[in-house]
């Protein structure tokens, strides 16, 4: 009897380890950002629309959102309506990072579908995207008033994600409901 105890115990342990592994597996398809809690990488980029360059340092002192997109990205089209809704709510400045795209195609996209962005920075050769650890589009970052990355969402923005992972992280303003 006793000699079955050790193998049975080991087997139970193995089952427990594999079970925990399987339970956690779905979350592993989304890779956590290495940047959360760290300063948002600095950059200066050409604007898609209008003159001059955009520098996120100009947003210091306020919370803002950066959305990585491209016209080649089908999920970006899916989330576009939600981005327009976010823009209409005027809660946070929304910066677009147009990644590995064609300027004309990108402008045509915004003309056709509507432009939710306060400013769109252009990153044709991934230099900004690599600094931000971007590995696919769409990705959406939340940056706080001190320029720290608070959260990164991979995949299309939805109403649920926006409420749970973005709005819920904002500091509570006195007098403003919630």
């Amino acid at each position, binding site marked *: 009897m006793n000699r079955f105890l050790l193998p049975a115990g080991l087997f139970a342990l193995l089952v427990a380890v594999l079970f925990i592994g399987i339970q956690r597996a779905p979350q592993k398809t989304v890779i956590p*950002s290495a940047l959360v809690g760290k300063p948002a990488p600095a950059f200066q980029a050409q604007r898609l629309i209008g003159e001059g360059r955009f520098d996120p340092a100009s947003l210091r002192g306020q919370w803002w959102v950066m959305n990585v997109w491209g016209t080649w990205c089908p999920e970006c089209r899916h989330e576009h309506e939600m981005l327009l809704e976010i823009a209409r709510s005027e809660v946070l400045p929304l910066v677009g990072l147009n990644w590995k795209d064609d300027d004309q195609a990108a402008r045509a996209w915004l003309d056709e579908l509507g432009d939710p962005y306060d400013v769109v920075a252009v990153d044709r050769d991934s230099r900004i995207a*690599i600094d*931000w650890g971007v590995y696919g589009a769409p990705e959406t970052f939340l940056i706080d008033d001190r320029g720290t990355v608070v959260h990164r969402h991979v995949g299309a923005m939805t109403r649920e994600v926006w409420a749970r992972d973005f709005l819920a992280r904002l500091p509570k303003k006195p007098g403003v409901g919630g």
Partner: protein
Amino acid sequence: MIRSSFQGLGIVRAALLALALWASSPAAQAIDPVELQDPALQERYRALTHELRCMQCQNQSIADSPVGLAGDLRREVRELLLAGKTDAEVREHLSARYGDFILFRPRFTAATAWLWITPAALLLLGIVIAARIIRRRATLADSDPTEPDDRGDARA
């Protein structure tokens, strides 16, 4: 005799064929046409790009992947090497941005220690258990020769 040597030849031929097929497969050929001038640097570049994960495809290295971002990451590695960074600094540069997930060979940290230790520990455990079983069988056989360890014997 003749037949068996034929079989041996057949296996060798199959192995050669497999090798030839593998060598002509895309996995063996560099997707990357760029070569660095310095052969030593090129070798380090080749080794590094094979141990960095293509984040979009996840099961290929950036050396094997034709995806756009993999090409941009190869450029990043190239530029860092040309700027005189060490291999460790290149790995650090990319894992600071993409996390340890980009490294195919996990680093030894508190979180990954079990990953490195478990196989050796399990092997050791197996050896200990096997040794105990063998020793017990040996002593059993010595002390009780009438013990029927074979069913045919017991019935007879």
